[in-house]
């Protein structure tokens, strides 16, 4: 044993490619490492630091030093190995950060700050990008799938007479011509709502659906019907459904990427929660669609306040029972009507 050979740590040694383990000691001389069995004798493994693999330190898990010949020395004495490595001018930067230390508190705060920034800026930017590059074919598939499942689950064929349908369609086309996609970009469908009752909605590819019950509710007032449809066009023009979908999916995806493992239950909740989220329009989206309805109606020479009147009608007939809207993502109709009227005034066409 050379005089400047210093013992570093004790541990276990595995022969090349074997599971056998024997108690052993790790010794160092300059940049060379030796393993000597506790039983004594000649070194069983010798190697230059540059040609062996010393596993990075993670917590207190056993440290493994793999020699070129496939033999392995493992020790629980991480600190001794670190000390020797430090003398050779190597230190584990990431482990240093991970040690339990007051500075972890700063990391926690930084993570919360970054998470806030991501939610505020990165997610919206990514959503815009995704909306921009979404192929039309994809939105078409999504929409036809949704309509198909709704048709099977809840809708029946419309009971509206053909002449009435044609009349509404003609008025609708007159209004849709002023939308950026033009009348060709939209496809109006009449359905009997059944469970859904009075309603109208738009799918991201420009498929619009209006239920017989809604037409009944407004007593066939054409302005109101077209106003509601213009509101739905507003959702399509601004890609609200698509944005909502990407926002929810993006949030879930980012959480999974950043957190790495959220547990099986966490993943379930994230994916189901994302699916739920995609189906509610935000307050902003609703008021944006209201404004577009006002503008389109004004351009088409119809009453721009129609959508507001529609909400008044709704209030009157159904009552504003808090249970009529499950989620409070929709502004109260009073405040909503005021916003519509203000916008109608600023658009400048007084209407009736």
């Amino acid at each position, binding site marked *: 044993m050379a005089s400047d050979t210093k013992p570093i740590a004790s541990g276990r040694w595995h022969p090349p490619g074997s599971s056998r383990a024997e108690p052993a000691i790790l010794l160092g001389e300059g940049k060379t490492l030796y393993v000597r069995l506790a039983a004594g004798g000649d070194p069983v493994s010798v190697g230059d630091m540059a040609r062996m693999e010393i596993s990075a330190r993670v917590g207190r898990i056993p440290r493994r030093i793999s020699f070129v010949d496939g033999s392995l020395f493992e020790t629980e004495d991480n600190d001794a190995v670190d000390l020797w490595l430090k003398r050779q001018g190597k230190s584990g930067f990431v482990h240093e950060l991970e040690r339990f230390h007051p500075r972890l508190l700063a990391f926690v705060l930084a993570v919360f700050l970054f998470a806030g920034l*991501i939610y505020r800026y990165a997610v919206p930017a990514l959503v815009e990008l995704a909306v921009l590059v979404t192929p039309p074919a994809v939105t078409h598939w999504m929409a036809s799938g949704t309509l198909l499942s709704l048709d099977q689950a809840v809708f029946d064929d419309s009971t509206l007479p053909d002449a009435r349908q044609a009349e509404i369609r003609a008025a609708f086309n007159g209004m849709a011509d002023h939308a950026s996609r033009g009348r060709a970009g939209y496809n109006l469908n009449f359905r009997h709502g059944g469970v859904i009752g009075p309603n109208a909605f738009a799918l991201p590819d420009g498929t619009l659906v209006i239920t017989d019950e809604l037409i009944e509710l407004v007593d066939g007032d054409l302005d109101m019907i077209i106003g509601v449809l213009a509101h739905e066009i507003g959702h399509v023009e601004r890609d609200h459904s698509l944005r909502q979908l990407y926002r929810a999916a993006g949030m879930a995806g980012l959480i999974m990427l950043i957190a*790495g493992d959220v547990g099986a239950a966490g993943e379930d909740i994230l994916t189901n929660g994302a699916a739920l989220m995609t189906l509610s329009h935000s307050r902003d989206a609703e008021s944006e669609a209201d404004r577009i309805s006002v503008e389109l109606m004004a351009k088409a020479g119809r009453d721009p306040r129609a959508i507001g009147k529609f909400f008044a009608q709704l209030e009157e007939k159904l009552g504003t029972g808090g249970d009529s809207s*499950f989620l409070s993502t929709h502004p109260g109709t009073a405040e909503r009507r005021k916003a519509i009227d203000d916008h109608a005034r600023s658009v400048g066409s007084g209407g009736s």
Partner: protein
Amino acid sequence: MQQAVFGRANALRRGEFRGSAGEYFGIWIVNILLTIITLGIYSAWAKVRRNRYFYGNSFVDGHSFDYHARGLQIFIGRAIVFGYIIAYNVLLTISPIAGGILTLLMFFLLPWIVMRSLRFNARVTSYRNIRFDFVGKTWAAFVAIIFGGLIAFFSLGILAPFASRWLYRYIFNNLRYGGRAFETDPKIGALYRVWLPAFLLMVVGAAVAGLLGVMAYYSVVEGADASTDPEMHLLLGIYGALVPALVLWGVAAIFYRIGVRNVVMNATRFDARHTLFSDLGRLRYFWIVISNLVVTVLTLSLMRPWAAVREHRYVIEHSGIVVDGELGEVVASMQNSGSAVTAEYLDLEGFDFGF
């Protein structure tokens, strides 16, 4: 724990987990911080450090496991998957037909991907200086996973035990440890015994959902509101009915999964002599998962490291191997680990190999 069987000593060696929540907290928060700062690039290295922490603290018979995947391997895998998705979307814009063909191709590639990722995960795992290996073939993966999954799905779960049996026979019968084989033969009767309570729970859940669904139907009819999305109405109705059912189904799924794990591991032999062992308590494990979730949510996820360590500890301490005589010396059959692309595409970390 010793049990004597006709004079031959069979020693059960339980796993032990030596990690601690405090120590893992540092690793976890630094992983998140660096992942954010590097715009997600570090997530591959984060995965390696996380796995090394959990593998390296899982001990059986005084030796721990280790995880040898490199951050770069996983990063390249993720980059390729990312590139594929981008290329796929570009192609879809140019030609929807080509995109459709690509989707079909993906479906046919799936068994190969599953096989490769099982192999990758086995080859980057070691115990006592010896790596694991997986020698399953693609076609067998198709039968075991895709066909089995379809059978289980279309039989409404009634044939699920057969699918589980195929899946775990595929996994364990192809698993190698340094040239020595694992073999498993879970009895279909035993699988049906753990399936029965889970299935009954599912039926109860479906009945509850049906009952609430009818009630929700009428409440929706009462309170329709044109300013809300009908889909949301529908979904809320459905979810309102489903939440209790989903909880019951969650319990059923955990019951079944844990039951199957116990049956399969206790029916798995290593080197034709030693038997794997698992005695997870179904209710206890469910309690751990649920309380972990609640605590994690209430603490804005700051207790997630504690929850992860707690769940892991329970699983490891209720697994083990019943050694017949001595494990003996195992000699390696050297292989490199193959690429990480496929392992990354389908993150099969959920398939614990029973340790």
